[in-house]
């Protein structure tokens, strides 16, 4: 059917955010709309900018660890890990075996927790209210586990340069084992309710599609890139820490649409659980801290360390001038870069598609704005 051209229509500009139910924080997307259709998107960020990189210049290396929690506050362990490994690389510190295993367990738990939040909030953004509660219920158990090891649930600051802050209490292992045993059931429940739901599929499949080439050009990493068909996971391709000792798969999907970005998280949770099981099995006894000088003074130099964060590749660029405070710390946050591709993905869909697409990118504004 030919559109009626005699009818005069006007595009409207809609500010989605900074206060909006589905921007996942204080983020604003300026949508240009033609009816319900999105013809243009502009990202406006910075509402949560706290100048963490500047603050770092006035803190010692150890004092900066708590700040990393506040980047991607849904996966604080992973931020801790990225930062301490960067400093360790700079100083050439060898971390004790037990600490390495504990780090892996915590990092993967954090990844599961972060993916749970993504799954839940995306279900919610598509109005799957009941599906929202299942991952959050399970995530609660991860937070309980974190509380056991470090006393806090969200901003953990568990890792230290040279090891971890505390050993696990005796009740931790049984609690973790029972969590891992019940994890598949929760996922099954969730998949039955939302992942395999016809309406959900119709809302997500073919929506917000991005092909591999564009995704690479826009610097997209993590699950979002793997949903485009490239099994690029730093844990596998360039293992840091002791990831080369574990047997796990890198899930790949090929359509690069919203649905694939959703499903890949479900699959990654299963793989993370596998890693934790292996780490728990092989967990050695021993010290949890390396011999580290009381005042951390890395030699002059610089290092760029990348880890596979929950949202994509998380990079820490640490420049040292030989003093006890970092000369410059730059944080390459995956959400920030992934969000840069949102206009490309959202263009051409409806408002509802834009909401689904944004949820599938899985941004955390603490990391975007730093």
């Amino acid at each position: 059917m030919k559109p009626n051209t005699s009818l005069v229509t006007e595009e409207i500009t809609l500010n989605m955010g900074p206060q909006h139910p589905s921007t996942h924080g204080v983020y604003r997307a300026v949508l240009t709309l033609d009816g319900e259709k999105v013809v243009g998107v502009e990202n406006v960020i910075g509402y949560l900018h706290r100048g963490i990189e500047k603050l770092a210049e006035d803190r010692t290396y150890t004092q900066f660890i708590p700040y990393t929690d506040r980047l991607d506050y849904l996966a604080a362990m992973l931020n801790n890990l990225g930062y301490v490994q960067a400093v360790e690389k700079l100083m050439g510190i060898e971390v004790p075996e037990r600490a390495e295993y504990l780090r892996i367990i915590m990092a993967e738990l954090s990844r599961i927790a972060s993916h749970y939040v993504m799954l839940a909030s995306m279900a919610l953004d598509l109005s799957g209210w009941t599906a929202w509660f299942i991952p959050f219920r399970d995530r609660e158990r991860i937070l309980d586990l974190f509380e056991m090891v470090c006393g806090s649930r969200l901003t953990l600051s568990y890792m230290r340069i040279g090891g971890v802050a505390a050993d696990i209490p005796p009740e931790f292992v049984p609690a973790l084992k029972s969590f891992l045993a019940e994890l598949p059931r929760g996922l099954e429940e969730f998949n039955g309710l939302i992942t395999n739901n016809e309406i959900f599929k119709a809302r997500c499949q073919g929506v917000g599609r991005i092909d591999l080439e564009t995704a690479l050009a826009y610097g997209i990493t993590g699950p979002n890139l793997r949903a485009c068909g490239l099994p690029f996971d730093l844990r596998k391709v360039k293992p840091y820490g002791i990831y080369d000792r574990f047997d796990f798969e890198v899930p790949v999907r090929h359509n690069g649409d919203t649905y694939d970005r959703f499903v890949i998280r479900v699959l990654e949770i299963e793989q993370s659980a596998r890693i934790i099981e292996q780490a728990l099995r092989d967990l050695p006894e021993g010290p949890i801290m390396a011999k580290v000088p009381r005042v951390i003074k890395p030699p002059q130099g610089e290092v760029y360390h990348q880890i596979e964060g929950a949202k994509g590749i998380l990079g820490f660029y640490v420049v040292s001038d030989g003093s006890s405070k970092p000369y410059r710390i730059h944080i390459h946050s995956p959400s920030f870069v992934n969000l840069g591709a949102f206009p490309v993905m959202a263009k051409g869909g409806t408002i509802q598609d834009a909401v689904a697409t944004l949820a599938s990118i899985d941004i955390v504004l603490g990391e975007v704005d730093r």
Partner: protein
Amino acid sequence: MLDALLSSWGLPLWAVTTIRALVYLLGVLAFVFLNAIYLIYLERKISAYMQQRLGPNRVGPRGIFQSVADAIKLLCKEDIIPREADKWVFLVAPIVIFIPAIMVYAIIPFGPGMIAADLNIGVFYFLAVASTTTIAILMGGWAGNNKYSLLGAMRTVAQMVSYEIPLVFSILGVVMLVGSLKTSDIVAAQKEIWFILLQPVAFLIYFIAATAEVNRGPFDLVEGEQEIIAGPFTEFTAMRYALFYLSEYTNLLSVSALAVTLFLGGWQGPWLPPWLWFIIKVYIMILLFMWVRWTFPRIRIDHLLQFNWKFLLPLSLVNILGTGIGIKVYQALMTGGW
């Protein structure tokens, strides 16, 4: 009965009619408000049960007075009229939405003889009055002078106007069987067999279209909280918002009541008093609506319209055709010839 009592006091006819109308109105209002308040509580409890939560449990035993507390809170809130709003339309919209929501109860038979106005165009009256809700929501969306409201209002028109058609056609099947638009006749005709058994497809179409008509999930695009905040109701505050909210539950109650009347045998049932049967059936319907709402994610606007025009509408037409053929065949069998 009431008429006779009043006449015996020597009142003139016009006064008798007026008093009777007022009594009916009060009765319906009491029924509607009590139920709507309870439904809000019920919805929260049901969703909590489905989501492994407790739901409201602070105000009164098991939180039963939560909705009352909410209503009082909303009454006490500041009534804000945006400066740029179309003032009169803005003020009138919440009232306009509530009037048809109440008016439709005139033709609902709560029990034998318990009907405010047994019109001979009963079902037609229901549909005609209920469809004016669209205008009220459009008014609310336009008056607020908010882009989200406007988007919501546009969705309302697209959605409700489309879904009205299969809704009407699904009812047509029942009307063909009975040969009357009178709701009391329709209930009476279901003495032997409920129409849900004779018209299962029509019931399904009615259920889907009614969900869309009352803007409940998965067809709650009008409010689409995650996309357009609260749609047409975004700018409304305090009691004005509460009226929209109440009317939503009133509408839920009325479409459930109509479904019971048309498909589930109305007030008919053994042992229990008829009005109780009616309430039980209505609540079964409502629970069905709630179950659906808290299970499915929201559908997309273009899918919604495609589903309506490409699937639901043809299906309802086929249903009418099938019903017509069925009636003819039945007559032929009964009378032994064409």
